[in-house]
């Protein structure tokens, strides 16, 4: 059995995969300040659902996959460790100068970005290694001891060491680490040549500093998670979702916490792609609407959006992570987004969120600020008695009072109009996020499909589609837990790299075969050593290379792990030119090709998801009923509410209507049509104008 847990800002989601392709979903509030409590809560909920004890459920679990936004939240809110940066004498401004670059040529209203580690916590080590690895100036140990004293005095909690050319000769970084281990025992250290052995000191230093700054918080968290799940009976192995849209051993994550930096949203496109491909093979906007954030990504022709140059914050203004990752845009908008009216009479929704604690007013846990969820409740979109399958009763009157006094009165609106305004403003914010990744890239959202994921997606996904003139909205059955489900569909993946320069004009077949055989052995050992592996294991081989004096490599796949002595590099050379032409429209067919690095990528599916994951249906709750609800087009009226699990397939429902399940509510706007299909609900938004509607 496999469990996948996704700790979001508001809810902790759990997907149970029994191995037969049938998923069960559980959802429980995220707990703060100790999110592990929420993980154990949702596991207990699942155990109850399965009719077992927590101990028994965890004992039967062979893979436990974990995803958390803890790392990125720590970076964005500045709650990372007090981190120092040690670098080569003469180069203290690597993080300040970065690689230059600026957008928006005439707009000088954007301030110059501060370095990830301030100059006052940057220290210069007396040493220098040359480009060829020679020691130009030996390491002066006394300079490191002196720095160690200052680090102690400054109360530094983590140290990043990035020396020039450590990737060619790591001796000095290793020596610095040895001194720090002795002088600052227990203070975690990241060495750049170990974390990210790549050329270009800014990228290496930036990843190194981000990684070090996350170590204390992530190590504490993962250690606690492992031990508490162990105490509760978990026998299987733990894995963590990575920014690369795959999963990795949790011990690897503790060593390299930067891997989890963008892991939260990275899984939504992985699962969103699955549904978009199954239905309509073109461009899909995958949205994941949670309680706190709204994540959007663009899946084109089935390709997961990928970026090699990941920035935390805007391009050239934030920090480059130095690691490739799945490309997802996140904004602060969700069910928990707080609505307020400022002194000038302007309505605001978000980015502040009520989170899970205290949560929206209607949760009755002490929240006093009205949220998007409160507005949806007032409008009749959410059933107060059926939230989370009836496990949490919602306080409608408290929500009405909060919106009436804090929003409706200051704006001079009726209660219903105030609640509509809150939803509409949240919708507008989400549309802006979608336009960022579509319109601003020259993609017309009209020609795309929206995949509505996340527990809050159904509230306004149809409204968003109407505004963008999208013709199709898909709500996967597992949409409410899109990220957790994505992890179940993802791959165990690890890359093995060897940096060794070789010119194809002097191609050494024997040497090349030794390099690739070494990579193959490492990759195979990785696959053999993982219980999760076993389905469709694949090892792919690549080289990265370029023409002479180019500085950016292109990746070319090898035909296999063995070069034939008579063919030599001929096929590789042919493929390199072809690939160069394909990407850049030209090739220099007779020129030399320089191989810079060799890679093996080991992949293994952890579930057989090709048939499509289905949700195990719960027994229908109450069947069809009628509820009073409000739409901008119609005003308040009684409209039908359908139970998702009881809705027959291929039997269209026309809005105004609500389709709801324990985990989600889909608002079908007036005139829009919804059809249940295997594994998903498909909605065609009404794009016209209703009769009698004002202009």
């Amino acid at each position, binding site marked *: 059995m496999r469990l996948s847990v996704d700790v979001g800002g508001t809810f902790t989601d759990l997907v149970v995969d029994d191995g037969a392709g049938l998923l069960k979903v559980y959802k429980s509030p995220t707990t703060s300040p100790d999110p592990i409590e929420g993980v154990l809560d949702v596991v207990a909920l699942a155990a109850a659902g399965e009719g077992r004890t927590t101990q028994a459920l965890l004992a039967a679990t062979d893979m436990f996959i974990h995803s958390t936004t803890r790392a990125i939240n720590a970076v964005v809110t500045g709650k990372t460790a007090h981190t120092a940066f040690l670098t080569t004498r*003469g*180069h*203290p*401004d690597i993080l*300040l*100068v*970065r*690689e*230059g*670059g*600026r*957008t*928006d*040529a*005439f*707009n*000088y*209203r*954007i*301030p*110059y970005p501060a370095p990830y580690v*301030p*100059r*006052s916590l940057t220290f210069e080590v007396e040493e*220098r290694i*040359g*480009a*060829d690895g020679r020691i*130009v100036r030996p390491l002066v140990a006394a300079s490191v001891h002196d720095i160690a004293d200052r680090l102690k005095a400054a109360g530094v909690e983590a140290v990043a060491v990035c020396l*020039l*050319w450590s990737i060619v000769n790591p001796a000095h970084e290793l020596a610095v680490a040895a001194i720090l281990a002795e002088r600052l025992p227990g203070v975690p250290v990241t060495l750049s040549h170990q974390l990210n052995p790549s*050329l*270009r*000191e*800014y990228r290496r230093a930036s990843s190194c500093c981000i990684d070090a700054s996350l170590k204390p918080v992530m190590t504490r968290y993962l250690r606690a998670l492992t031990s508490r799940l162990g105490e509760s009976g978990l026998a299987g192995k733990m894995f963590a979702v990575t920014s690369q849209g795959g999963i990795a051993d949790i011990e690897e994550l503790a060593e390299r916490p930067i891997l989890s930096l963008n892991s939260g949203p990275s899984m939504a496109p992985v699962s969103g792609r699955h549904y978009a491909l199954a239905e309509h093979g073109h461009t899909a906007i995958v949205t994941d609407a949670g309680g706190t954030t709204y994540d959007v990504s663009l899946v084109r022709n089935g390709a997961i959006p990928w970026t090699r140059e990941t920035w935390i914050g805007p391009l050239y203004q934030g920090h480059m992570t130095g690691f490739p990752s799945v490309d997802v845009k996140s904004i602060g908008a969700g069910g928990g987004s707080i609505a307020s009216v400022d002194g000038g009479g302007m309505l605001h929704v978000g980015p502040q969120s009520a989170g899970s604690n205290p949560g929206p007013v209607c949760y009755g846990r002490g929240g006093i600020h009205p949220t998007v969820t409160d507005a949806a409740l007032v409008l009749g979109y959410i059933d107060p008695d059926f939230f989370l399958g009836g496990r949490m009763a919602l306080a409608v009157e408290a929500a009405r009072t909060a919106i009436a006094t804090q929003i409706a009165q200051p704006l001079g609106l009726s209660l219903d109009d105030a609640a509509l305004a809150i939803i509409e403003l949240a919708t507008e914010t989400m549309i802006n996020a979608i336009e960022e990744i579509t*319109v*601003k*890239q*020259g*993609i*017309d959202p009209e020609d795309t499909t929206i995949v509505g994921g996340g527990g809050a997606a159904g509230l306004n996904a149809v409204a968003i589609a109407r505004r963008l003139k999208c013709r199709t909205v898909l709500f996967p059955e597992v949409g409410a837990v899109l990220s957790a489900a994505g992890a179940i569909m993802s791959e165990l993946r690890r890359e093995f790299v060897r940096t060794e320069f070789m010119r194809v004009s002097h191609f050494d077949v024997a040497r090349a075969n030794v390099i690739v055989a070494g990579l193959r052995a490492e990759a195979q050992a990785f696959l053999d050593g993982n219980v999760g592996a076993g389905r469709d294991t694949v090892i792919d081989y690549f080289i990265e290379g370029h*023409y*002479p*004096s*180019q*500085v*950016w490599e*292109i990746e070319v796949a090898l035909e296999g792990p063995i070069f034939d002595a008579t063919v030599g590099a001929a096929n590789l050379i042919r493929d390199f030119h072809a690939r*160069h032409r394909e*990407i*850049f*429209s*030209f090739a*220099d067919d007779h*020129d030399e090709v320089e191989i810079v690095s060799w890679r093996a990528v080991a992949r293994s599916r952890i579930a057989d998801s090709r048939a499509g994951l289905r949700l195990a249906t719960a027994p229908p709750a109450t069947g069809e009923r009628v509820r009073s609800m409000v739409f901008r087009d119609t005003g308040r009226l009684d409209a039908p509410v359908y139970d998702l699990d009881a809705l027959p397939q291929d039997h269209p429902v026309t809005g105004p209507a609500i389709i709801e399940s324990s985990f989600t509510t889909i608002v079908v706007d007036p005139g829009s049509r919804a059809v249940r299909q295997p594994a998903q609900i498909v909605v065609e938004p009404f794009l016209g104008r209703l009769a009698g509607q004002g202009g």
Partner: protein
Amino acid sequence: MDGAPPRIDGVKLAIMQKRFEGVTRKMANTLLRTARSGVINTARDFSCALVTADCDLLTAADSYPIHVLRGADLMARAILHFHPDVKPGDAFLHNSPYHGNTHAADHTILVPVFDDRGVHRFTVLAKAHQADCGNSLPTTYMGTARDVYQEGALIFPAVRVQQDYRDNLDVMNMCMMRIRVPNQWRGDYLAMVGAARIGEREIVRMGEELGWAAVAGHARQWFNFSERRMVETIAAMRSGRARMTCIHDPLPQSPGDGIAANADVIVDSAAVRITVDLTDNIDCLPVGVNLSEACSRTAAMVGVFNSLPQSVPANAGSFRRVDVRLRENCIVGIPLHPTSTSVATTNLADRVTSAVQRAMAEIDPALGMAEGGAGIPPASGVISGRDPRHGGALFVNEVILAGGGGPGTFSNDGWLSLFTMGNGGMPFYDSIEIDELHHPIRIETRRIVPDSEGAGTYRGAPGVLTEFRPVDCDIEIGFVSDGTVNPALGARGGQPAIPARQFLRADSGAVTPLGTSEQVTIRNDQLMVSYSNGGGGFGDPAKRDPEKVAEDVREGWISAARATTVYKVALDETGRVDVVTTAALRA
């Protein structure tokens, strides 16, 4: 006023415009990823742009302003002038500063794009600063060249280098015989043609997908939209006129007190026009810093756009509201052949831009900015020599390690990695490791210089100290480090930055001072020391937020002494603002 167009039209217009910008972005990506010289593949010293069949600039997204704001139009026109018979498959090499190009080192590949019926619809440009262009000395900045002959670059006035998508080998062979490290040039040429062909392919795709009428018709709407936006913007500005002067360092053959750039600026919000008059300036000189027409027009325009209160798309539409007055044979005007414009993109062009934006600040204190740190110091010089690691193979390249600091503006401190005003901070600064891998040099230092900024309510960015030396050989370097005599000036009470400085320091301790414009050898036992010029400050430094001053001290940007003497801020022993003493100092 006719009714506002329905929102959906605005959205459609924006989508189409972003698609065009996507075209130039794809071109730029191709050029960066495939070029062979460091100045292109690491420093990104290039631009990609797109003009209409009428040669009006449609987009230069992510390009250096100085490269293409004006000039892309002039170059496209030069092609039609010399070649009325343009055909699909043509490509043109253009670097003539007498026919719309910036300076001879900026090779530009232009490709006219045709629809399925053979009608010329657009022209795409890829312009890149070459590592070498065949000058008489191994530098692309010949500050003291007395004319184009002494410069020595091959000049290509819109020369057809491809026909039917095939290279004209005669032209290439000429370049291979004149340009240093010819294979590097050839690789860069292929990358530029590749980028232009990517642009052509993407536009043809747009035409096929969306219809040529819609794609071509977009430009007119976008220009009108941009002009309307410019009208709204200027109408809300304060009217007035001001003259400001910024002075380039003296060069041999120039007036002894330097080369002045006077800008007479008029903002007329009633007539909704801005005028920049550059005609009251001296004639061209027998030096390399004369501006080309493209650079004169653009430099003035950059000063205007930098000073607008809100962002306005920069294209032929918004340009209708800005008049730039030039005269022939003026040093910041229209040079006549064979005047040298070898250094036209940076030095004197920046002085023009800075004069314009300081004048804008005089007209309206809530606009404009101080003077940007002058370029370009040895830290961005052209280095050349023989690489002992590769059997003495020749190398030549402009390294971009540091440049001028950004000016303080009416609302912000200067942008640290500005480089020059004309580049607007868009170049990438070289990676130390990449530069050391590709050249026989070691960069010992790159750090900001405390107390070098132009002080102000909003301070300029500081200068940068860069030190580098050859490894196992001697090398040569060329640069024109303006700001050595005349540092960047402040605006509205802001102070000037500390001047640039450069010298060679031998291991023996012997120091060889260097002037503004030099072409010298750096011996194996010498260190090249380069202090770049910071940006000027904006407004009275004694009005700077004391908390910002305290932060600058804490982070090592300025000394505590300077905080007291210049910014009139006293700090206690823990580095916090001493409010009482500060108030007394500022009283």
